[in-house]
């Protein structure tokens, strides 16, 4: 595929400059945004392939950007801190994954290339969060569509630090299949969150 058109959204200009330098020739930064409104406007105007968005930003944070734009582009969250619940919310709302800001430049570039190609960016920490979320869901309510044994296996292997390739080799499946499992897991997470919201609304009489 050609050059990936990307929008950088972060309230720290110095950080945007840093990422821009790291991205190299495979990416074309078509715009930078310092808050949620700017980011959403940029996405609507530029239709980028990828948005690299800080989780904490003025105007509602990365979650607001995901809610507004996840249907139109792929969004990768960048955070300084791992394992936050609002991160899970962002991913459940449609972000394709997240990266910690201390990720080394090479790794960042590779991960964003994959995200630009439509692959979920599923770090071990995020996999751990999602595992925990499904444990919580299966405890709290019976009617949530849980993970299959295979999906849980894949998710746990990601959380343990295995690459898709390694997982494929261990489970005797192709890397592509591993990727599909991960996508299905994200889909289920998305659904379960939605169901939870609906159930909450019904229980509390909100129309």
């Amino acid at each position, binding site marked *: 595929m050609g050059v990936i058109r990307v929008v950088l959204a972060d309230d720290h200009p110095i950080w945007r400059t*840093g990422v821009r330098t790291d991205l190299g020739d495979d990416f074309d930064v078509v715009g930078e945004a310092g808050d949620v409104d700017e980011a959403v406007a940029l996405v609507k105007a530029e239709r980028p392939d990828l948005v690299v968005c800080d989780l904490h930003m003025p105007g509602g944070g990365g979650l607001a950007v995901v809610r507004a734009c996840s249907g139109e582009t792929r969004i990768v969250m960048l955070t300084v801190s791992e394992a936050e619940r609002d991160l899970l919310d962002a991913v459940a709302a449609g972000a394709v994954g997240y990266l910690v*800001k201390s990720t080394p*430049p090479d790794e960042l570039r590779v991960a964003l290339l994959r995200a630009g190609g439509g692959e979920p960016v599923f770090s071990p920490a995020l996999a751990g969060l999602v595992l925990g979320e499904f*444990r919580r869901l299966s405890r709290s309510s019976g009617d949530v569509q849980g993970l299959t044994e295979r999906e849980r296996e894949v998710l746990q292997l990601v959380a343990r*630090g295995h690459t898709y390739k390694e997982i494929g080799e261990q489970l005797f499946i192709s890397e592509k299949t591993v990727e599909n499992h991960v996508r299905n897991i994200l889909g289920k997470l998305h659904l379960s969150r939605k169901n939870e919201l609906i159930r909450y609304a019904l229980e509390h009489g909100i129309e």
Partner: protein
Amino acid sequence: MVLVVDRHLLVRPWLAYGLVALALVVTVVLTVELRADAAKLLQPPAVVGELVVACAVFVLGGLAYESGGGFASSQSLGVAWPVASVLTAAVAWGPLAGLLSGVLVGLARVGGAVLNGVALAFDSHDAVALLTPLVIFAIAGGTLGYLARLLRRAESDVAAAKAREEVARTLHDGVLQTLALVERRTDDPDLARLAREQELDLRAFLAGPPAGTRRGAAQPVNGRGAPGDLLSQLRSAGATYERAYGGRVDLVLADDLPALDPAVARALAGAVSEALTNAGKHGGADRVTVFVEPDGHERPRRPGRRAGHVFCSVKDDGRGFDPAAVAEGMGLSRSVRGRIEEVGGRVELVAREGAGTEVRLWV
């Protein structure tokens, strides 16, 4: 509002009804005002007005009753209503104002009694009966004023703490950003390591390590095995590794880990630390992931084990080794296996030449 009126004792019913009507009107006005703008009720006009009406009810009440009708000890127009004005003054202006208002309203009641023709001799029954409410009013006013002040202070303390926390969060965020940037952009490995260490320190501080544990120390844990203890021990092991080998450790800990026996947590952290050392020393690993979750699916059932089981893995991207060629992985087995089996756990070692190593632990 409590009104006790015995009609047979009234000599000036019109006055009594008038006072009741006045109290009612004031009550309605204040209630309406309360719904519209509660803060207005604590403004001087409202408070003074309430006090004046309260005194008026007491004083004029003395005229409404039949003289000597036991006014002092039993009947008066309104008991609770005037007290409310004292409480309002206390909330609005503090303990001293509350106390003084209490005395004032109490005196108004005495005034009413005098108008009613009650003789005020100090040893009389009536004097005691009149003094008691005065003291009670004063105490009620003073106490409530004091409580209100405490409450208000606590409230503003909480608000200030919240504001500070918000600022701290923003600051920490900025510092973490900067450190991450330094780490990534510098060519000087020492500077990068320093930034990384500072970042880890700040993170550890933000996560709030439990009392009694200190990063880098030999982990004398005196907690009761809360998951936080394990977390801080693992974090310390990871930081030690990063300092010694320059690689990177990702900690992936479930947030619903069961509480572990302190000895088990110590053994686990020790084993992880050993596994990390091996990854750095023999594997030349760049990246190690330490994963811990409640032990559900992969539990090797063993009889006689206590509650609170976890599964833990330490996976590196190093050279790995051929398990067939290297008997039990270079001493790893003794140091790791020893610790884990001592607390009734189980160890598995998975390695392949050129594909990293994974140590799996169940405790």
